[in-house]
């Protein structure tokens, strides 16, 4: 029983990371109806940036904050420079561009930081918190960080004028321009936020999965599964989906399919949900207009 609980709780810790990355995916999906295949690699690159700063002696939380800021700027620049020219391109073209970005980030990371696996220390103290024996301190800390991110994102979109403007721009660009919202910038800010949130996911994942240029590939797949499961147009659905996938993955890995083919769990969830209920658990059904 305690073994099962242990699996569930450490599943929740990874699930939180999937939830954050899924949230980043949803953020771009809501504004553009596209899924950013490079989101994971962007997060991986941010994590290397953090590692470099920590390695050069910067305190962890300073590096953490600076990485988030740099990722935000980087995400905005990518939108403005790389993505913007394809604003009206067909889906196939944009998917190819995303794959191009994925390859570029992956190889630039390999080039700059080498393909050797690195350790990435956890910022959380080594002793277990509050007598919590079910999770390591990093797992508890990662869950706390996840909740902090979710709360901040919620507050941003719910209570700030900029958050409101971004929601408005995503759902009705024409009307948004009429009330004075600069829709193009809202998209860029959306990319920046997604990159910043993704960076948090990367930094929380690195102590668990170790740092290497391919570290986010599996995580991205689980985040896809989480987003699809919860409904890719619904941020909170996607977050719940991320947690669910984390737990399912861990339990399936431990008791059903074995740890070595855990990724197939994500594949099955993605294909299964898309076939049975394409809108996900909490998403809206899309209707094709003739």
């Amino acid at each position, binding site marked *: 029983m305690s073994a099962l609980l242990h699996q569930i709780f450490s599943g929740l810790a990874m699930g939180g990371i999937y939830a954050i990355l899924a949230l980043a995916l949803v953020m771009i999906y809501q504004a553009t109806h596209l899924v950013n295949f490079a989101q994971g690699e962007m997060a991986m690159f941010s994590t290397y940036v953090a590692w470099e700063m920590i390695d050069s002696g910067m305190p962890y939380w300073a590096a953490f904050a600076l990485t988030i800021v740099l990722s935000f700027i980087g995400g905005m620049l990518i939108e403005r420079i790389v993505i913007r020219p394809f604003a009206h391109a067909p889906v196939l073209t944009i998917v190819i561009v995303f794959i191009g970005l994925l390859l570029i980030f992956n190889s630039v990371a390999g080039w700059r930081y080498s393909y050797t696996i690195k350790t990435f220390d956890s910022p959380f103290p080594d002793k277990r918190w509050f007598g919590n024996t079910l999770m390591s301190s990093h797992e508890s800390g990662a869950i706390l960080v996840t909740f902090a991110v979710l709360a901040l994102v919620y507050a941003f979109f719910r209570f700030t004028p900029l958050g*409101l*403007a971004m929601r408005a721009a995503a759902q009705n660009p024409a*009307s948004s*321009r009429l*009330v*004075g*919202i600069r829709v193009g910038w809202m998209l860029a800010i959306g990319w920046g936020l997604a990159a910043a949130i993704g960076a948090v996911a990367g930094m929380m994942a690195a102590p668990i999965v170790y740092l290497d240029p391919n570290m986010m590939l599996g995580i991205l797949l689980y985040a896809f599964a989480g987003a699809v499961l919860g409904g890719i147009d619904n941020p909170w659905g996607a977050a719940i989906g991320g947690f669910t996938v984390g737990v399912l993955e861990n339990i399936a890995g431990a008791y059903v399919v074995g740890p070595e083919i855990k990724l197939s769990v994500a594949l099955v969830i993605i294909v299964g949900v898309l076939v049975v209920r394409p809108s996900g658990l909490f998403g809206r059904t899309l209707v094709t207009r003739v």
Partner: protein
Amino acid sequence: MEALLETRGLKAFYGPIQVLHGLDIAVQEGGITALLGANGAGKTTTLRALCAMVRREGAINYGGAAMNARQTEDVVRLGIAHVPDGRGTFVDLTVEENLRLGAYTRSDREAVKQDFARVYGYFPRLEERRQQQAGTLSGGEQQMLAISRALMLRPKLLLLDEPSFGLAPIIIKDIFRILRAINREDRVSMLIVEQNANLALDLADHAYLIETGRVAISGPAAAIKSDDSVRRSYLGY
């Protein structure tokens, strides 16, 4: 009286297709001008051209200065609010959020608060449904919301695209009464596009009849209304 808004030779295009062929219209400071005409004459396009929502050529003067170079996002910053064709409701946002967006470009928080009270005063129904998703409102309520959203800008000029479209007569009457009040009390100038000529001519002081992208007839609203030949050939009643 001096013209607040004036166009000279305004042309507008949808892709390669020209819709306006040199339109000269004016809205007087504090006045209400009506644009009348058949379907496809270019009334909605005129409003869109003013807000740079379509490709356009020609001169547009506003408050004595040219505003041709203004992008859509910047036109509002001149105090021009547009109640678009189809109402432009943000259906997933609440009524209150829709109104907050109307005041998006303003930074005078206290005055915005007052304006909330003011539009809720005009349309108490909206206050009742403040927290409701705007998409769940009825057509009449969405039109009220669209007008209120525009008023939240505290505009100098209000562009109204068929405010009576698809509404029950009793609601239309209500909305037009409020428009008149807004014009008198707040000195908001208006340019109104309407299918329902009678209604528009009652409200407006000046009117233009547009035919295939050109002004066919213009004059004081009362004169146009009483001119039998105009009425028969253009307004069809």
